[in-house]
């Protein structure tokens, strides 16, 4: 991949998490956070006139593209604000408003397995990548794209595989994913997204006063600037796996050769794909020649269904 040039335009996809129930627990109100986000978006647009922007919003039930919108909303003219900013701001804010209010009105839940405080994050990221793909394919010159995710909700374990697929696709496309987690615990999935794609993972302090400053400092930089300036160091992420059977963090685990499920002890049958194992541990030759390990296979409860997969 070529080096980013100073003159290359960028594409930013902002993914907003507008899960009402998740935000209700947050000390930082959704309105306040959005205000700061809108200023950030304006700052991004101010950087380069060629800069391209897509804003997506997702909650528990749906994922919508707020900007560029399909319909041109009539916006009251406000002479104080630069035209370009106003269009974006108005569309984004009204879109979020309608999603926040619309979410409560809706009955029936098509997305089973997603709890109230969780968001369709992998759908939002997938669509974001589709947008990026389209813009990159449709432009002759090089466009450097990145993503900024404002996340409030918790991880949905169901989304692990799809989210990982998305992250790897982003990595292949050279898309940086910046994460701004507003409150609550660290999102393990999104942390990995930032780590694998080379983006930043930010955790906003409780009242969120410094959110804008942090965003401006870390997430505004384009690919070129990130080459020049020091990025804040992410905390070391533990890439160790959790076993499917007991949810224990394992150093050395056993992996089903067919479906790659991770187990902490030997089992006769893979609980995920029902493959019967031959009773021996496969080891590469050098390990056998070194004779480092002798372990007797012991039968284990293999009936635990794979309900979720988490990483510590």
């Amino acid at each position, binding site marked *: 991949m070529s080096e980013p040039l100073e003159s290359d335009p960028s594409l930013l996809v902002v993914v907003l998490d507008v899960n009402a129930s998740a935000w209700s627990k947050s000390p930082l109100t959704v309105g306040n956070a959005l205000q700061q986000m809108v200023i950030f978006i304006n700052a991004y647009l101010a950087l380069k006139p060629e800069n391209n922007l897509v804003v997506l919003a997702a909650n528990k039930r749906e994922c919508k*593209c707020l900007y*560029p919108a*399909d319909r041109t909303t009539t916006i009251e003219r406000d002479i104080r604000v630069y035209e370009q900013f106003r269009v974006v701001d108005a569309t984004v804010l009204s879109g979020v408003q309608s999603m926040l209010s619309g979410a409560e009105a809706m009955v029936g839940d098509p997305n089973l397995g997603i709890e109230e405080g969780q968001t369709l994050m*992998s*759908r939002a990221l*997938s*669509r974001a*990548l*589709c*947008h990026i*793909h*389209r813009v990159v*394919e449709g432009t002759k010159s090089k466009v450097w794209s990145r993503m900024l995710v404002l996340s409030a909700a918790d991880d949905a374990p169901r*989304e*692990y*595989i*799809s989210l*990982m*697929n998305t*992250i*790897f*696709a982003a990595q*292949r496309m050279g898309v940086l994913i910046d994460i701004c987690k507003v409150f609550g615990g660290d999102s393990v999935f999104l942390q*990995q997204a930032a780590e*694998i794609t080379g983006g930043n993972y930010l955790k906003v302090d409780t009242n969120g006063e410094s959110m804008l400053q942090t965003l401006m400092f870390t997430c505004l930089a384009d690919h070129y600037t990130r080459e020049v300036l020091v990025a804040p160091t992410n905390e*070391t992420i*533990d*890439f*160790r*796996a*959790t076993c499917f059977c007991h949810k224990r963090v*394992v*150093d*050395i*685990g*056993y*992996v*089903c*050769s*067919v*479906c*790659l499920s*991770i*187990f902490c002890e*030997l089992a006769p049958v893979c609980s995920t794909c029902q*493959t*019967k*194992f*031959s009773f*021996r*541990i*496969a080891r*590469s*030759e*050098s*390990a*056998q020649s*070194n004779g*480092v*390990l002798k372990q007797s296979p012991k039968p284990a409860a293999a009936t635990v269904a794979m309900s979720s997969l988490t990483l510590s």
Partner: protein
Amino acid sequence: MAKGNKEPADDEDYIDIDDTGPGDLKGADGGYAWEEEYKRSWDVIQEDASGSIQSIVLGINDQLRHKRRVRDTEAIQRGIIRHVVLIIDQSENMNLRDLMPTRIQATLTMANAFIGEYFDQNPISQLSIIATKDGLAEKLTDLSGNPMDHLGALKDKANKDLAGEPSLQNALELAMHTLKRAPTHGSREVVCVIGSLTTCDPGDIAQTLEALKTAQVRVSMVHLAAEVHVFKRICKETGGVFYVAQNEDNMKDLLFENVPPPPIVSAKATSDMIQMGFPIKANNAEVPTPCVCHHELGFVGYICPRCKSKVCTLPTDCDVCGLPLVSAPHLARSYHHLFPEENFKEVVSGDMAVDSTCFGCGAVWAEPLVAAAAAAPDTSEPGGGGGGGGPGKYRCPRCKHDYCLECDIFIHETLHNCPGCV
């Protein structure tokens, strides 16, 4: 001593290069392709009402692209842990210039791309490269999971000299010897890129074929010139595929068919629990320490959980105790092979419109624009302007969302997620 067999022996054995491409040897009337009237590729192109050929060319391209990406999506067992030997012909035949700039250059470029793609899609698999020239076979790299080793070997000038005749038998024997070390739970595959029509072998290649079958090695081949009976037979009998490349692009497609893991067909393949280490990243060292893999000093590294030695990249095998070291994301990278996304179906005009725009990228459907732009009626594309269906619209059978062709291809080739289904 096996020889290139240019004429098919009988109708049973006749060669089926690629039943999708125009390379079918047998035409519709049952005769051989060369007996038919010569088909010119430009005959299919016809001007539309306004005298432009752009729309029809676009249409053909779209069809081709859509066809290319329609894949087998059944959830079948696939050998995720693969051991592949890449055999590259380095005989004098590779000096021909029918592929630009030369066969060998084109092959090496493709091989580079193949290696990158292979390790991207099969992070816990291994590869080895064997070259054959002067009737001998030479191992360029041993089985290893580090793409850098292989790319480096291909870059090495000394490995680019061409000489004499290739020896398929020697190369296959060497490959078999290499693959013997591979554990049984992983797949054993050989991928050959051959430009020569002959092979110069010391013994009976049929015996090698038997040995390959017993060792459950799957041999696939991409030939750069023409079909050779013995090559085809080896591929067929070991469960692999034999292709003849028509041009550089076609060659890439054919070679890259070997990138996704093949389905497990043999009942004899065993499944195992593989012991793997999940090392912790260590970057808090005060002084740089050497890694066991390259003996280079560095601050960052991964500590093998069993022997506590430091390696610098993942995934790899620990050089001290041999434990395969991976990180959880590496395993996750292979999941899309196990749970593939279903093929989207092209929306026909009768169907109800669900989305007003492409669900992926939000693009507005093309027809109204096209209809407005080209006022002249376009008879070649019925259903245009109906709003319901039309060309360039594909629907996911699970979530019933519509996508444009661009997103369809992107979703299946890169993303492996349908945004509507997740």
